[in-house]
């Protein structure tokens, strides 16, 4: 609570609407699925949705559009490539996170020392 009633009501309304949003999108099919049938081929297609959604979140975070255009290979992208390489060699998902973070810290420290 901020003491500003109008702002508090606005935030509470946002929270209520987003909760409704969660309930409708997540539980909608669980509740009314029998009345909204989906064919087997559609279900099959839906198997690709999670990979696509996850990559859709990651790509804009890693490679955001820049004013000057083009893709910039910054420390985050290089660290992500190191993480992929580590998984390819070790099959460990934990190393993706730990190794990727370590790579980012090392790359940042190195770029701070070397004036490009």
């Amino acid at each position: 609570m901020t003491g500003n009633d109008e702002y508090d009501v606005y935030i509470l309304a946002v929270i209520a609407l987003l909760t409704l949003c969660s309930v409708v999108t997540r539980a909608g099919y669980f509740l009314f699925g029998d009345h909204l049938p989906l064919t087997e081929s559609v279900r099959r297609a839906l198997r690709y949705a999670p990979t696509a959604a996850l990559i859709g979140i990651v790509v804009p975070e890693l490679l955001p559009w820049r004013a000057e255009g083009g893709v910039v290979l910054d420390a985050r992208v290089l660290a992500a490539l190191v993480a992929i390489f580590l998984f390819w060699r070790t099959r460990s998902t934990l190393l993706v996170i730990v190794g990727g973070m370590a790579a980012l810290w090392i790359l940042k420290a190195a770029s701070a020392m070397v004036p490009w």
Partner: protein
Amino acid sequence: MAPRYRTPSWWPDGRQRQSVRAGFLDALSTLVATSTWGFVTGIALVKSGLTESMAALMTLTVYAGSAQLTSLPLIESSAPLWLIFAAGTVVNIRFIIFGAALQPYFRHMSWPKRLGLGYLSTDMAFVLFMARYGESRDRGTPDQFWYFMGIIIPCWVSWNGFSLMGIYLGSFVPASWSLDFAAILALMAIIIPLVKTRPMVMCLLVAGVTAWVCQPLPLRLGLAAAVVGGVVAGVLTETLQHRNHRNRT
């Protein structure tokens, strides 16, 4: 002989407890991702100007990181409520898709149970559950229900626990640690092992390129476009593979 206690009838029996354990073990590696995301989301909520109590209420009720993070810039610019609701729904479209795929396994249950299971379902619960039972002919078995519970309950606890930690401790973590990047790595740790077949590779490539090209679209519609593009690419590749296979034999 040890005294026997009466267990309530809904309590899982030995075989069902094994399903709970299997779900928990499968969810374990993804809990790192869930926890990191929760922590980072908690930090982001308070850094965007929400009070700690509002941020805590939001995390406990909305329980959807990407929708919460999407709403923050909109809240900061005092966007109209309908726009925030629309943006949250678009970001959550994937849950409709997941729910449609999961529903046949739980359709026999009472509506309050279905409401609860649906509300608590997560991306990871969908991915892991379909990997294990996607091809199963038997749908609606107790094992499936308890396996699902074994995933969604630890998910709920770790998400909310780490979100609250992020909300109340976040201000002590220096920005130079770049903890937001750990969330990205955690998501990558989920994606990479999924990409094993050629249709999945095509899905990943098309979704990735679409997501990159569609970045200027408002309301994270680029995310929805990436989902559509990735699914179409995956299905087309799968169909072509089947056709080639049939032609050869």
